[in-house]
């Protein structure tokens, strides 16, 4: 038996994000279509597992995208990549 039987919910997947000057997302590309950010509901930092070889340092954004889709994205502040939950 390996890791197969346990499947995490909400695992992040890579996403293309256009950010403005201060790093706030301005648009997110979903299914090859660019969705403009209508509003940023909340943003927060997550710094975890800093005592291990795989530290987590993320800046999260809870967004409302055009035309009303809700999304949670984050920038990995270690490698600079963007990911989206769900």
């Amino acid at each position, binding site marked *: *038996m*390996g*890791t197969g*039987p*346990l*499947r*995490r*919910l*909400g*695992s*992040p997947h890579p996403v293309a994000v256009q950010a403005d000057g201060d790093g706030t997302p301005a648009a997110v590309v979903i299914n090859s279509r660019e969705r403009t950010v209508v509003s940023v509901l909340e943003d*927060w930092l*997550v710094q*975890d597992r800093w005592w*291990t070889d795989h530290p*987590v340092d*993320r800046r999260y954004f809870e967004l409302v995208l055009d035309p009303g889709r809700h999304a*949670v994205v984050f920038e990995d502040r270690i490698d600079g990549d963007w990911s989206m*939950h769900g």
Partner: protein
Amino acid sequence: MVVATVIPRFPLLVAALRTRRPLDVPVALGPAPGDPQVVGLSSPPAHEQGVVPGLRVGEALARCPSLELISPDPAAVAEAAERLVVRLEDLGARVEHVAPGTTCFSADGLVRLHGGLDRLMRRVRAALPVGAGGGVGAAPGRFAAISVASMAELGDLPVVGADRIAEVLAPLPLDRLPLPHDQVTALRELGVRTIGRMAALPRAAVLDRLGREGVTAWRLARGEGDDAPRPRRPPHALTAEFHFPEPVGARSAIHAAARLMFGELTAAARGQGRALRVVTLRARLSGEGSFERSITLREPTADPQRLALAALPAFDEIAAPVESLWVRADAMGPLGGRQLTAIATGTEERRRRAGDAARQVRAAQGPEGIMRLIEIEPWSRRLEQRWALVPYDASDHLTR
């Protein structure tokens, strides 16, 4: 003749190898997570500075400021000990596993097979881990053979005949005899510090002061009344393993993974027409260290629910995030030896129907056709850490 192997400080040796620490500097086994703050086995340089097993960590560091503590790794020790026993069994021996690194077996029947006792002992020495400093010795009884092996110098293969046992054992410390700790302490206070001094005591005095246990030890000290090895019965071992994508501390996730493994093991045991009797649970902990518990079931079972009832509470003792779980069960019991009820209860009937339904959904939709949602760390700020899906298990769900 009985042949024995002894690898001194085996648990420390294994933990040091895993963490790549040398033993020619002061190191000792530290306390396991959640255990009392005392040190375990220590390396010779640490021992010379007064670091002995059972000493409080603070006191040990005061006595030896350069002391480095290594997390104990009972799972790795058990694996290494099992490998040693299997290598000896491969020589044709019926081996008794006395303690990790300490084994013995009767050489009767093997001496001719290997072309003499000396050749057999050389092959036994070759089966020991390289560089572990293990000793091999032979004597007519179990206790004497283990004692002789523990004294064996590097490159030496001592064989002690019945007439010399008492003489060879005489200089060894008293705590080698199978005596309770308080009796050893009392005897030391009376000036009896070696096996030779014990052997010189009058039998009547030993019986009066120490009882029958004392007389048994006294006879061993005199080279009499030694036992034959009690070899293990090679088990029908079934194992299951589960690796978490990331270390997990949540009880629900550990239980869900354990239930999956119990289901797999009981199904395998039923397939062999046997039931499970002894279950060993191991967890590799995040960072260094591991957890191990062995559970002997009151009655052999092939029912995953009964196995979970007996074994799951042991996982609650784990005090650190878990990287992987490993369960081994010895399928030694008869299947269906005892029926607990003649009439199925309502819960059992519902569980059976739910199990049938789940199997039908899986047959139609694939293995992930029906899943159960479990909490991993619902408080985590990383969303992917909060929830997970595991295969639906009717027995788990319907007993709640």
